[in-house]
């Protein structure tokens, strides 16, 4: 197996996600799922594996929604997927087709063709497509894996307005509650809560996702991360006097993120270096200091202003503080330290910020409710980036 940071991984080479995938299928039997995770942790690998290897009785379809800019484009894609699915069972999406025909449109080989400039009601198209699905109980259950849902909602919001974006999430919610047993798995590289916050700012008061089960993809389990590293060392033909030691060092240095472990293997390969603890440690440092930012870590710093526009300075001070703290810190410790740097003393606002930063995977709480950096690798990067003591 070759290193492939950021690329598409063969389903057979996706390691350490079987327990998670099994639990996701059992949840899907009852309700739809939102997969949350920090970027580059391997969400797409999880859904690709689920799509490729569904359990008996299920069929999965994967769509990257980022390309859709209108609700009609989205509804059309659902119609196309439903049509393709039912065709396998020698059935058709009759109601949705009838709707299209009434608008003068035709569907050929799953592709909708409407007269130039004409569209149809996207809500009806979406609803009828899902309805058609429910009318064929003998067919496998179809689950939609919708990647980059937040980007699509943002695209629709920009192109067609907040109202249409709100209607999309509301309609999906009502369809999930319909008789069809309509199932979806939503993922995205930005949290849906950011898009919803924008909609709430535009007076949207609903909770359109609170019926979905939220599952977080975490870094690999220690042994799985070591197994990945082992396979990469072998696959890349890296020299190593002690494969086990090299694999453990690589898994640890990459914080058990598959993306970083792949990057380390690639870096060593391209420079002809062996996989041993010294070269791996040096590799991580080189990558963190590389002006081209191959690990894309600068993003964690740059998105602060975007994510927390009202509290960006507090967020920076908070992360600076936690990055150099030798232990976890409580809310009052943090507030006290921030007060000494900024004119900020609102405890409730700080608690709200801490929650949001926790949801964005910067920080986490220990069993005593005290805060620390979520990922040691990110903590080390933060210290380097911000010129804080090593």
């Amino acid at each position: 197996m070759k290193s492939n940071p950021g690329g598409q991984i063969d389903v057979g080479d996706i390691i350490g996600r079987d327990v998670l995938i099994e639990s996701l299928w059992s949840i899907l039997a009852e309700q739809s799922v939102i997969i949350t995770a920090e970027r580059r942790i391997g969400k797409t690998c999880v859904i690709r594996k689920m799509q490729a290897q569904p359990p008996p009785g299920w069929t999965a379809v994967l769509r990257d929604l980022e390309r859709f800019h209108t609700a009609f484009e989205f509804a059309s894609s659902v119609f196309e997927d439903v049509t393709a699915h039912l065709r396998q069972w020698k059935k058709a999406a009759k109601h949705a087709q009838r709707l299209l025909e009434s608008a003068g449109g035709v569907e050929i080989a799953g592709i909708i063709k409407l007269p130039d400039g004409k569209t149809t009601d996207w809500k009806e198209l979406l609803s009828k497509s899902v309805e058609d699905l429910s009318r064929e109980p003998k067919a496998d259950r179809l689950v939609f894996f919708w990647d980059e849902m937040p980007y699509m909602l943002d695209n629709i919001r920009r192109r067609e307005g907040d109202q249409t974006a709100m209607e999309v999430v509301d309609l999906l919610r009502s369809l999930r509650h319909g008789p069809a047993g309509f199932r979806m798995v939503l993922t995205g590289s930005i949290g849906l809560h950011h898009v919803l916050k924008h909609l709430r700012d535009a007076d949207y008061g609903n909770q359109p996702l609170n019926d979905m089960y939220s599952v977080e993809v975490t870094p690999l389990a220690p042994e799985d991360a070591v197994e990945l590293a082992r396979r990469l060392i072998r696959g890349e033909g890296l020299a190593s006097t002690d494969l086990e030691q090299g694999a453990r060092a690589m898994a640890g240095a990459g914080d058990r993120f598959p993306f970083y472990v792949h990057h380390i293997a690639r870096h060593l390969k391209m420079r002809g270096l062996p996989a041993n603890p010294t070269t791996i440690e040096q590799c991580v440092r080189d990558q963190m200091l590389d002006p081209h930012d191959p690990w894309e870590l600068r993003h964690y710093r740059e998105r602060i202003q975007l994510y927390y526009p009202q509290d960006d300075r507090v967020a920076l001070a908070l992360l600076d503080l936690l990055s150099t703290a030798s232990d976890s810190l409580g809310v009052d410790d943090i507030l006290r330290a921030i007060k000494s740097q900024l004119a900020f003393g609102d405890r409730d606002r700080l608690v709200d910020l801490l929650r949001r930063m926790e949801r964005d995977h910067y920080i986490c709480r220990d069993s005593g409710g005290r805060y620390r950096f979520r990922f040691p690798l990110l903590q080390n990067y933060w210290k380097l980036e911000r010129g804080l003591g090593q």
Partner: protein
Amino acid sequence: MKEPALLFRTTPPRTPRTIRERFEVQRSDLILDAEERIRESILTGNKHHLLFVGGAGLGKSHLLRSIVDRIEAAAPLREKLPIAWIPEHQTIPSYLDLLHRIYLSAGLRSPDRFPISDLTPAYEAPGDSATARIEATLLERLDGETMLLVLENLDRTFAGLQDDGQKRLRALLQESARFSILASSRTLFEGISDRTAPFFGFFQIEHLSPLTEEETRTLLKRIANLKGDRDLSDTLTTPRGISRVKAIHPLLRGNHRLVVTLSNHLDSNRLDELATAIEGTLDDSTPEYLALLARFSPQQRRIMDELSRCGHPTSVKEIAQKLFITNQTASGQLKDLRDRGIVTSTSRGRESLYEPTDSLLRLCPAFLDLGTSGVRPLVRFLRSWYEEVENGELCEDYVAACLVLAPETADRDSLDERISKLTRKASRTKTLESLGKGLVLSLRSHTQMPPTRESADAWIATWKRQAHSFAELKIPLRLFATGLQSLAEQDFRILYDLASEERAVLRELLEGQGLTPDQPRPRRP
């Protein structure tokens, strides 16, 4: 001597494989690695997407061709691999057009598998339906196999696709998992480096390096062998040949295409006529330079012209003043040029200094400006500077002579007289180049005991008065003055008043004396 016409300079992929492999320098490991990754992409569900980034003339097309050659040569893969190659000259204005080109290119290679007739329904369908149809046809024809997409100048392709097209392409790649991309680009660009862009983090990026001095020599030697020029090949391993390549290297900066072009103007006899060979190289490259200029806006052309005219790294303020534009305009344009890799910026204290990155953009303006002596003086100086055998002893004599002529050793009139005598003697004996080299080398003796500012100023002024009329001494005088001033001030930032080639000479000299000119020191109080 054999006919060298098979070596295609601007379209290296046209050069026959057997010949290309014979002068492959520097990239063997990269090619092998890429081949392994593409092979894995074809045979398994892992899909690698590789992007090679490097400026004009750094051998990107050559590299892509070599990788594809190796993949095609591997027997089990040849039959299996559908390839679509979008060359750099093709304009891609939309996602639909990209899909169309991909299909046509694959059809050229495998007409039975990708028949043009399959496109008829798409030709008859409107806009989005046509896109969906070609996508569907392509995937149907691939029938579960993986296609290798070779995309030259990905930056320009992505500019044509725009955000929507990029998102559609990404969706096709992600959903189908039937493509592996091998791409090149002159620079990093927004479509892959902006964190909100669909292809951010998607590619495995390798930055291509220019040739080192050693690699330049190896490449010239291999081309000489290819041409059957045994004399040149042998000479390149002698001290004379090594010193000539040392002189060439700062000028061509390891640009593969320029080195290949230069090889057309070199033989063992002409190795001594470096200026003629370099001029021949620039003459051959002028159409490429003009094409490069044509891509800039009129405002950017003026800026590039000014940067080339200045000859040394230049600040935003200086550019703005000389072009009668605001600092903001100059800064914005320079930032854009920097992001595209056209200029390089260096920090000097708080200010950023800019200079052209590309050898063509630095050397061609001087070559084309008929009112000057072009690049000849610089080439001749570098040739003389790196000459180690023929004029070594003479140079050291001149070093000694220059050291004696210090302001402390005589009054102004006497010093003027003695320097004048020395330069006239060098002129008479046709050894001005050696005198110039000796003058610069004399700086070595001042690194441990730098002169005072006053002394340095007096010294520089005297040399300028007595030597400025000799063209051969113009560059050495500039180096001597800048070097002495930086030593007197203990501030190496002054070196940025020199062009990069001249700066490299002084930096090497100072480093040879244990100094670190790249680390700025505080000015003397």
